[in-house]
């Protein structure tokens, strides 16, 4: 009882904080007499949503698609590589230092190159999202898989368990908290990656739209675009969080 009323009051406080920010925004614009092109009111921002010229549905859809493609590619590649590394020490010793070095490259700096390689459109922007999101997922997964107790491996080997059983019953569930922690970081980075890609070159997407309306100083539309990008990120992050709730017992989760 104690605990649930505590959660309730915490949720309430969280909602209040967000509403407070909204109210402060409104008050600032209404009382401060700020020009609309500097800071639009919440109402003006919502109105921008009804401007059909901006193709909100299409642009949001394109951005979301870029993010999801890049993100799931990062997830698949990251987890698979990490798995291969636990199976072959040589492979790990060869690739891991290389990957750590590659991780040092500011991925945003690759933008112009990625455009040269993949032209423009959804693919290069997905690749931007992928290149940023893959490292945290790969590195945390590899760490989680390494963390398995050697005696637990002995236990399975003594029963002549297969590599696949070892992976599905011991290593993967043991690494799951780590994978999720990498996935959470990756989700936020994937959104940033896709938007940077759109800023650099694109003909659709919310990032592209922001550059278009920047020229006409339609600040309400820019605000709306930022809000929509954030919502896409929240949806992705929220799904990851939800999945973690379902798959990882509370005791095993890491922040």
């Amino acid at each position, binding site marked *: 009882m104690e605990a649930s009323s505590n959660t309730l009051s915490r949720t309430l406080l969280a909602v209040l904080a967000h509403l407070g920010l909204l109210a402060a925004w409104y008050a600032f614009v209404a009382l401060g007499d700020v020009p609309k092109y500097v800071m639009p009111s919440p109402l003006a921002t919502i109105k921008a949503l009804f401007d059909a010229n901006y193709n909100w549905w299409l642009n949001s859809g394109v951005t979301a698609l870029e993010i999801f493609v890049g993100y799931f590619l990062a997830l698949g590649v990251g987890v698979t590589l990490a798995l291969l590394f636990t199976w072959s020490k040589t492979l790990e010793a060869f690739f891991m230092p290389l990957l750590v070095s590659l991780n040092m490259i500011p991925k945003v700096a690759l933008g112009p190159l990625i455009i040269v390689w993949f032209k423009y459109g959804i693919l290069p922007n997905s690749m931007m999202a992928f290149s940023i999101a893959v490292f945290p997922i790969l590195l945390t997964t590899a760490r989680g898989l390494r963390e398995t107790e050697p005696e637990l491996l002995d236990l399975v080997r003594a*029963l002549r368990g297969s590599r696949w059983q070892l992976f599905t*019953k011991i290593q993967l569930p043991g690494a799951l908290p780590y994978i999720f922690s990498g996935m959470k970081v990756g989700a936020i980075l994937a959104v940033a990656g896709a938007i940077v890609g759109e800023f650099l070159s694109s003909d659709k997407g919310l990032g592209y739209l922001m550059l278009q309306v920047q020229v006409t100083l339609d600040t309400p539309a820019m605000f709306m675009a930022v809000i929509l990008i954030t919502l896409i990120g929240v949806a992705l992050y929220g799904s990851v969080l939800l999945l973690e709730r379902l798959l990882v*017992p509370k005791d095993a989760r890491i922040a």
Partner: protein
Amino acid sequence: MTEPFIHLSGVRKTYRRGGEAHLAISDATFDVMPGELVSLVGPSGCGKSTLLKVLAGLHPQDEGEVRIGSGTHAFDPARDVGMVFQAPLLLKWRRILQNVLLPAEILGLPMGEARERARALLGLVGLEGSEDKYPYELSGGMQQRAAIARALVHDPKLVLMDEPFGALDALTREKMNLELLRIWKESGKTILFVTHGISEAVFLGTRVVVMTAGPARMADNIAIELPYPRTLDMKTHHAFGEYTRRIYRLLGME
């Protein structure tokens, strides 16, 4: 006379890492009869864990003979070994019953039967009612009991225990000793029990195998002729003291 269940003779084991060779066991020679509980003592690093790994088939020996099973007691290396370590090593994302079932899953045993067996074993180790708990909800001693149930769930003929009570406090440890003797009597398993506790070794074992500082050689193989069921007050008996003194002497600690 019955055939031994385990026959070790001249077993030698070297670890190789890179170019370096490290002799862990130089000569292990002893027999274990079916249904015995043999304690294995020796100084740290003398190769006790290594010997258990050889017996579990995890590392083949370099030299010597390892024979497990006999005409009357067939031995299947995949299905007839149960292992318990110093740490319970329960999977923290599984409930206790699911943890106990792990070996049955790996061996692909019929799950309905295995589940019944697991419940019965949890009763045997005094954990009825904890089936649906997560490991973190149990004390260290209770987790170790669950680990023992897990080692028995596939009904192995041989149970290898590597300092299973080493992490427990003295009181819990004595309690677990009594429990282990009861479980051993009820299950009829052959048990090899590695420990640093000399009094524990004597209290539990039908025999105590003493190994010298590594690389392990056999120092002695002592039959403990104290009657079962053993009770804690036997530790104050004269004969008990004689046995422990003898082992301390063998280990050069007197």
